[in-house]
């Protein structure tokens, strides 16, 4: 069982994630990039306060960079859920410290399988 934090701006996709993950034993937190919407306990909020990420200008790459910049978060695997899957765009994911990516559109089963594979990779 793991704690998984999802960051997604599209409301419909947030709902798909929430419904897809409810059958798993993981603890999940789903937020958009808008910092003001995050609950005070959010790990995102703590990262963003420290790194001064704002609510309008920063994206998943900035967030990944901020996570990778904190030594205490080095063990956390990052996976991008993305609709940008052109060759150059995919290359950027690894450059920002991602362990993998999940291309949109994806099914609930795809999402669960990808997360299981990611966690298995971390565990091994």
């Amino acid at each position: 069982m793991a704690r998984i934090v999802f960051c997604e701006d599209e409301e419909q996709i947030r709902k798909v994630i929430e419904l897809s993950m409810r059958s798993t034993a993981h603890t999940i937190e789903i937020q958009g990039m808008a910092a003001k919407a995050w609950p005070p306990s959010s790990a995102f909020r703590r990262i963003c306060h420290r790194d001064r990420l704002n609510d309008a200008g920063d994206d998943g790459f900035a967030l990944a960079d901020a996570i990778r910049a904190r030594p205490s978060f080095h063990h956390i695997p990052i996976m991008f859920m993305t609709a940008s899957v052109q060759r150059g765009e995919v290359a950027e994911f690894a450059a920002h410290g991602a362990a993998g990516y999940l291309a949109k559109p994806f099914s609930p089963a795809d999402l669960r399988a990808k997360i299981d594979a990611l966690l298995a990779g971390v565990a091994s």
Partner: protein
Amino acid sequence: VQSVPASRVASIGLAVVVLSLAAFSVFAAFTTRTQIDQAVRADELANTYEAGIAVFEEQERLKLRFFLDPSAESAIRLEQAGRDMAEAVSEIAATGGAEDAELAREMLALHDDFLAATERLLGAMAAGDPVQARLIDENLAQPYFDSMQTLLTAAAEKRVAEGRAALSALETRSQWVIVAAPLVFAIGFVLLLALWRILSQNERATQKTYREIEQLSKLRGEFVSTVSHEFRTPLTGIQGFSEMMRDEELTVAQMREFAGDINKDAQRLARLISDMLDLDRMESGLMTVIADPVDLNTIVIDAATQFRLSSASHPIDLDLDQGLPKLTGDADRLTQVVTNLLSNAIKYSPGGGAVELRTRREANAVILTVRDHGIGIPSEHLETIFERYSRIESMATHTIQGTGLGLPIVRQIVQLYKGRVWATSEPGAGSVFHLQLPLMASAAPAPRATRPQHA
């Protein structure tokens, strides 16, 4: 693309000019060198002949001296002078051509007889018989001598004349080269400059074309990325909700909820496809033109009502000219224009803030302004935002979804009805979009027949 043939012509021209200049230089150098050689040879030959004449004159002088002083020394000198004549004639043969060699052979044949006569003359003098010696001279030696001298003098005159002619020709050639060479090289230089300029211009045009192609390629890549994103995002909802409906035990309420979600994403996809097709039709001049009376205020009010329901954080204020006359146009298209502008005003004001719509009459036109208090537009993008697939890449716009089709559609529709649209902005403080539509103007006719609308 049109400059490619010019480049080819210029390159060929450049090669021709360079080759012509090289050929001219080689030709001028070769012919001048040849002429110099000819003049030198002619001069040498003339000098050889003149030397021969001098030897003959010396022989004649020594013979007269011998008759006055018939000493052994005079006799030796006279004999030597005879041999010198043969050498002079041989020198002419060696220096000159075939004609000179022929002349030399003829003279040497005479010279043999002349030498024989001279020996007899010397023998008579040695025998103390000057009378006999005189007779031999007058009847044998002198006639041979005269024959040789006549031949030699005639040939010498000819060769001297030829030498002078060669020198004259060389002088003429030199003058011609002195005048022509700078002229030819000046013309060649001007041609080279002109051709070089054409090639440089062509190079610049080619570079510009490459840059445009690169820009198009970049735009295409951005478009593919944007459209891919815009398609994949609603497809994720459609795929996710439909699979849950298929695979999970759901209540009727959940089924209805997910069906609504799917419908929402399907509509988003339909709008995207519709926008793309609309823009294609408009840019191709295939959009159906409708010219009905249209009340712009009604369109603005309807659009504002619709957006107020979905955008609570953006108050929409209206300032409408109640005496606004009707326009001639297509209500659906003008609704699309107002909706796109209003949608942008809200979308690019992520921090909230009022959006103001104002209508007014100005001379023979109606003006609509849409003002927001959002992130604004940098001045260099105020025009490019109306280009297809153009989106401002910045940290502020990174998370704002868009296909880059909304404003191009607005401009196409407005231009179809002979109006214009433009933007003013203060980055960080908001933007104002101005729409000007002529009153009761006929819509621009479609350049080609309209094609049937797809269902």
